[in-house]
């Protein structure tokens, strides 16, 4: 069953449309991520789901009930705020129980939920402390715990890890995912970090200028981006302008590009005669191949640890290649090929 259903929601602020006719659903226990650059309308959309904003158009259902005009305090959602929003003068235990007290739950039940959450989130030793006596990661867990004690049907996250340092972020990621699975919660998670989205999500909705540009599982999105925006936003991509010059067989097309003619293998036919195509830098095959061979001078390089970024230039077009081998020092030009199935058709050229 769908826990959350967002139907044709738009949000306008004056003349400005922050969310533009967005629809999606989240199933029980599903972890859905809204991913997009800053300012694309993620927080606005999340605030419409949580009830802080009433949409200019469209409908929100939670558990099959229309809640479009239900205020946040009466909605069965719980929000994890970006800056945690812990009450600074209340102890961790009081913070965790705040929502339960508002619900006027009996003390025994409160205690039981508090202990449950404190144990799951490893906060038992911190219960008497004030929030500013905790580390960033612990504060983050209290914020999560405070939302979880409410046993909401949906938990909403607005960039919850952006205040943590990189190492901590990875462990908290896993933890959030584990707990969300434990409680079998529907989750909507907002981030602008593609790594986070790929690692955590069941499904990713890529947002751009208030619209959903593409949605799918992390592998679908990564392997089959539909637009150059998605290709570039998720992972790295070399994007080229291409013109279809012929179909070789059922799913092979020949295209002409700035870096020469290329053979493309695609299950879906190209959307137009002139369109964008892309290939991932890590998919470069080294040495000349039977098809799509490229030989070009290396203009510069950047060592990245487990690989090296090489930038090559062909006919004035820079392309990026990730080379996973050492002893590169003496190479000044690169011979490589791209397999036809590694080239992806994107949107039509305007």
């Amino acid at each position: 069953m769908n826990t959350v259903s967002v139907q044709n929601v738009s949000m306008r602020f004056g003349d400005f449309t922050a969310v533009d006719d967005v629809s999606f659903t989240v199933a029980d226990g599903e972890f859905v991520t809204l991913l997009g650059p800053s300012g694309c309308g993620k927080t606005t959309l999340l605030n419409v789901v949580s009830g802080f904003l009433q949409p200019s158009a469209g409908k929100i259902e939670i558990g099959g009930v229309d809640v479009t005009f239900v205020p946040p305090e009466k909605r069965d959602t719980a929000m994890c705020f970006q800056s945690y929003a812990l009450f600074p003068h209340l102890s961790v235990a009081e913070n965790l129980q705040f929502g339960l007290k508002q619900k006027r739950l009996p003390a025994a039940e409160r205690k039981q939920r508090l202990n449950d959450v404190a144990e799951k989130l490893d906060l038992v030793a911190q219960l008497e402390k004030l929030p500013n006596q905790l580390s960033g990661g612990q504060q983050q867990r209290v914020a999560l715990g405070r939302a979880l004690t409410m046993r909401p049907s949906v938990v909403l996250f607005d960039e919850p890890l952006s205040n943590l340092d990189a190492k901590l972020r990875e462990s908290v990621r896993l933890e959030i995912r584990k707990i969300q699975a434990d409680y079998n919660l529907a989750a909507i998670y907002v981030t602008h970090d593609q790594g986070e989205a790929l690692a955590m999500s069941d499904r990713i909705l890529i947002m751009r200028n208030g619209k959903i540009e593409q949605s799918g599982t992390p592998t679908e999105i990564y392997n089959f981006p539909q637009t150059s925006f998605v290709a570039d936003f998720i992972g790295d991509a070399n994007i080229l302008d291409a013109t279809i010059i012929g179909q070789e067989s059922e799913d092979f097309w020949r295209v002409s590009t700035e870096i020469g003619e290329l053979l493309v293998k695609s299950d879906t036919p190209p959307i137009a005669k002139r369109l964008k195509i892309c290939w991932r830098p890590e998919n470069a095959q080294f040495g000349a191949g039977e098809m799509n061979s490229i030989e070009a001078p290396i203009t510069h390089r950047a060592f990245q640890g487990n690989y090296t970024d090489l930038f090559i230039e062909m006919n004035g077009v820079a392309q990026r290649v990730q080379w996973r081998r050492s002893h590169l020092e003496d190479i000044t030009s690169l011979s490589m090929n791209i397999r036809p199935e590694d080239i992806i058709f994107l949107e039509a050229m305007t």
Partner: protein
Amino acid sequence: MKRFSLNKMLVWSLFGICVLWLVIPFTLAILWSFVDPSEPWTPDHLLPPVMSFARWEYLWEHSSLKVAMLNSYLLAPSAALLTLTLAMPTAYALGRLHFKGKEAVKLLVLLPLVVPGFVTAIFFTAILFQMGLHAWRFGAILFAHSILFLPYAIRIMSVSFEQVRQNHIDAARDLGATPFARWKVAYFPALKPGVMATLLIVFIYSIEEFAIAFIVGSPNFTTIPTLLFTNLGANFIRPNAAVISLILVVPNVVLMLFLERLLKSANPALSSGKG
């Protein structure tokens, strides 16, 4: 070396200012208040020749000091509370709402502070009397003080309202808090230092305010400053004036120190870690 001597200079000048403005007047006031009526303190003595509590006792028994203290100490807290209450709506608007021309309004609110107190007092009393408040002197002065000190209160409270974090309000709401519970958990802790500061400042200003209290209140309604003034005029007796000054000033100094402590201790609780 240069830095060191500069620091030293600053410390010494601060010390000098303290002595000039605080230690000397206070010491003199205390000494003068203990001068016994039997023997005057003439310039050829370093200390008063006979010291006693006679002046204190005399003023306590034979002047309107008791009434003046009662009036002042009823007036000041009432003015503090009333000013705070009156300041709240404007402060809320300036601290929490977004509207065009907000900066101009902020400035406008502070503008009354540039007018000298006496000028305000003289013309303000006309309005008060037109409003029919002359029959109730206490009320008239209370009202006047509240209006007069409103700019300070609005300024302090609007900064306090700015300190309230929207995400605390939102979090409380998200967790099901009623408007009252939201106020208690998100607004009140952030406003508390501002509320205390406003109350104390208005209290102190009201206790010390002379112009309005004198023009509106005299001759029937005395406060400590107006009593002090009557002891400065034709029947000027320095030791009596010293007693009244001390009664006026000492509670204020204590309150000031309290305020200082309060503002210092208030801040750490405001922030919750990062963000």
